[in-house]
């Protein structure tokens, strides 16, 4: 399987609001499981119930979206990978926002899901454009570092390391880490507490 992620194209869904935490993305009661299967249907369950059909995940115009557009500090709080897993299982393959909480960002990268940021002005233009015309195609291009929609092509940011992992298809880190077997041993044996502080 080619794991490289160079661009994600598709319709988008706008989820406004800052500091949306992972408890809201997937309430803790759904963490009582030993597999991630089936989590998609519970994404934002409590917010959706309280919105009574008006939540962006429930309105017809955003149905089938591949890109989720969010605000600032999205995914803050709990480290639960269940959050990006639930969003991925709902069909999202990329995130565009003002900023992402770091553990959430790391979890996304580990699943091959790019999370890129735009300047506040560009993000507002993207959100407005997608809300006005939700059927349009939005393109997240990692190689070009851009997000394109009808309102324009915007410069996107993503840390170089994560971008490289996605472009090269090495986001499943285990095999990369295993390449350095010898160096892992050497590092361990240099650490005083690993060797029991033996003089």
């Amino acid at each position: 399987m080619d794991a490289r992620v160079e661009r994600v194209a598709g319709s988008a869904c706008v989820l406004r609001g800052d500091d949306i935490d992972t408890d809201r993305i997937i309430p803790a009661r759904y963490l009582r499981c030993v597999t991630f299967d089936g989590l998609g249907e519970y994404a934002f369950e409590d917010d959706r119930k309280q919105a009574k059909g008006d939540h962006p995940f429930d309105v017809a115009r955003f149905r089938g979206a591949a890109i989720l557009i969010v605000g600032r500090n999205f995914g803050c709080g709990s480290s639960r990978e269940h959050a990006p897993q639930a969003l991925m299982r709902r069909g999202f393959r990329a995130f565009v926002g003002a900023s992402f909480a770091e553990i959430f960002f790391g979890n996304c990268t580990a699943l091959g899901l790019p999370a890129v940021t735009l300047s506040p002005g560009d993000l507002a233009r993207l959100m407005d454009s997608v809300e006005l015309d939700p059927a349009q195609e939005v393109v997240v291009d990692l190689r070009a570092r851009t997000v394109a929609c009808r309102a324009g092509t915007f410069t996107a940011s993503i840390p170089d390391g994560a971008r490289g992992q996605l472009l090269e298809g090495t986001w499943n880190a285990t095999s990369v880490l295993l390449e350095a077997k010898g160096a892992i041993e050497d590092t361990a044996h240099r650490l005083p507490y690993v060797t029991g502080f033996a003089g």
Partner: protein
Amino acid sequence: MSGRSLLDKVWDAHSVRELPGGQTQLFIGLHLIHEVTSPQAFDSLREMGLGVRFPERTFATVDHIIPTHSQKRPLADDLAEQMLQALERNTSQLGIRFFGAGSNRQGIVHVIGPELGLTQPGMTIACGDSHTSTHGAFGALAFGIGTSQVRDVLATQCMILSRPKVRRIEVGGKLSPGVYAKDVILAIIRQLGVNGGIGFAYEYAGPVLEAMSIEERLTVCNMSIEGGARCGYVNPDEITFDYLRGREYSPKGADWERAVTWWRAIASDADAHYADRVALDGNAIAPSVTFGIHPGQSVSVGERLPRLDEMPADARASLEEAYAFMSLRPGAPIEGTPIDVAFIGSCTNGRISDLREAARIARTGKVASGVRALVVPGSQAVAREAEQEGLPEVFRAAGFEWREPGCSMCLAMNPDKLVGREMCASSSNRNFKGRQGSPTGRTLLMSPAMVAAAALRGRVADVRELL
């Protein structure tokens, strides 16, 4: 050339190699595991045909799903029982030490690591839980991670990380009676914001931190993640070494002296370079209470709730959402807000010193009628120590329930939950919507002593009046 911070020294000592794009393959010295974020990691490991590279550097316990009225097996909740069995199976098959239900070492993972002496200065620590930042209190670099990274650490004892910048946060002066470590970290997050720490490790310092016990430092470091920081730490000192001396997994004999020498050496140099510095006046910190839906939305107990026009434009939408969810009014006092539930416990404030302070308040009265009040010790060891001091009797006499150790109502993955729109005075770490088990339940974060005061009064009260 300027000196180096603890982060620089510990990072470099654990760097296996640099990766393209500026990332580091970092060796993890201690891997802590619990039942919620590990089962899928173990399955994935098996699918890849891999084992656990350093089982002797890996320790597990059960905390999130464990009931607090009884740990009797099988657990009443089938899903919880399945998770516990999965962890028992995974740890026994792979040679990982497991402090399970019924073990006298069981407890919240971030409480038992320190008390067993597993957490030590200069280590890198990872756990599939965001509050892993807690362990930074010893001068360790401790990272909360997701399940894919748990798999990586199991398989390789390494993870891929970008080196954070360091922000030194100095808290000067001295805390007044009734002001606790919880109030310090709430003040820091209020000032720097819940996203202010993105890209940073927080180095907490200054006279207030230097005067704190390890348990208080654990409370501060615990909520680093609530400020958006990747981790938080305090440089190790005599208080750190005194705490560690004689613990089960602490170095012993001649090794101890060599350990202390190394621990001293990894502390930040006096002339270390920091990407940012922030100063707070500890004298000005008062008992604090959150009123909103993230931990940055807090006030001192004597303050009125902020009006929308007093807040920066980009904070208003969140504030409006908070007031609507909490049914609180801008301009109103927080003191006197009625509560339904009082929760004392969690990895933030479930240690013995927290329970002692809460008991001190509990001795002065009775839980108000209509208030459900719970005390959940952070570990079996904390529970034993509390029992030796007679604290369960103090709490019970005042009308609190005394429970068995676990995460409990901090995130309500076990049967301890808010019901409907209940308002909870809580010593935990998150006031997110729905966090305590009811989608419409409401949380007011505060110190354990403040929770005890609120329990007795039936409403948010100034603990200083009860001291």
